[in-house]
């Protein structure tokens, strides 16, 4: 057996014993549909644990900050806190500087394009029931611009 035959045998063994699950391949094929070329990408800059104020339910949460790379920034930064466990998360947050925006939750199990809420005065928002898993938030700003966060697992 030469090296290539040996490697072919190894490849066949791995493919047979631990193939990539079809669901993983299907999700990867459909990933291109999540392109948002018109939106400015806000990349993850910080991801840390936070202890909510006394009396707030949900134990510890996570605090994340996303910001656009370009200078001057192509859109506001997005700051969120994620709490809750089980199948849903509560995401509260704000746009900095404050901006009025429609929010779209991008998630495999959420119908695409549906508005999930709006930011209130001072740019604050609350998404009480976001399914766990990979999620990205898209903010449609006045005037047609938009900002989309990088994907994170919540």
């Amino acid at each position, binding site marked *: *057996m030469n090296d290539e035959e040996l490697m072919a045998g*190894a490849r066949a*063994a791995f493919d047979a014993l631990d193939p*990539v699950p079809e669901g993983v391949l299907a*999700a*990867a*094929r459909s*990933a*291109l549909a999540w392109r948002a070329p018109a939106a400015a990408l806000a990349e993850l800059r910080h991801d840390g644990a936070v202890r909510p104020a006394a009396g707030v339910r949900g134990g510890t949460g996570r605090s994340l900050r996303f910001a656009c790379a370009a200078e001057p920034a192509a859109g506001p930064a997005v700051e969120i806190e994620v709490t809750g466990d089980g199948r849903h998360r509560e995401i509260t947050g704000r746009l900095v500087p404050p901006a009025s925006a429609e929010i779209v939750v991008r998630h495999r199990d959420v119908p695409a394009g549906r508005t999930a809420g709006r930011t209130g005065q001072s740019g604050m928002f609350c998404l009480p029931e976001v399914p766990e898993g990979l999620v990205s938030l898209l903010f449609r700003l006045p005037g047609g611009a938009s900002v989309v966060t*990088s994907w994170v697992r919540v």
Partner: protein
Amino acid sequence: MAGDPLATLRDDALQDDTSALVARARAGDGAAWERLVERYTGLLWSIARAHGLGDADAGDVVQTSWLRLVERIDALDDPSAAGCWLAATARNECRGLARRRTRDLALMPFGARAASGPDEVAVARERLGRVGAALEVLPRRCRTLLRMFAQAASYAELAAALGVPVGSVGPTRARCLAALRRLVP
């Protein structure tokens, strides 16, 4: 890689092709995207497994890597290096996940998949023959390396997957193959 002209040739052909596929995917060509997915998902899965991730976490890492490429597909500096970029991204995601999960990180034994019943596994083992049997007794480090090397990936992509210099990929591959060969009667 200077001593391995075949590998260099193969790398060049593959990267040209990857660059063209990325350009077509940027223009919204779903078929080109599927070719990229077919080419690299096996490598990404093997990277996740090399970090000891189970099915759910490995699936998340693979999907996160693809979504990161979608996010940046228009901004990639070097589309021909998309495979390297994906491999490095998967490696980073695995390391981040492992840090968060250290406490309940369980190493997946080779071939242990919940979906496979004992009969299926027995049939698979029979089909795998000598090489499959040898793989099972290889040290884990060598097995996970071989698994990456068995993917149709370039040396540059494997270097990104492993976080090592490109020049060390060929010798490492040769060492692992030699270890496997010693176990194949």
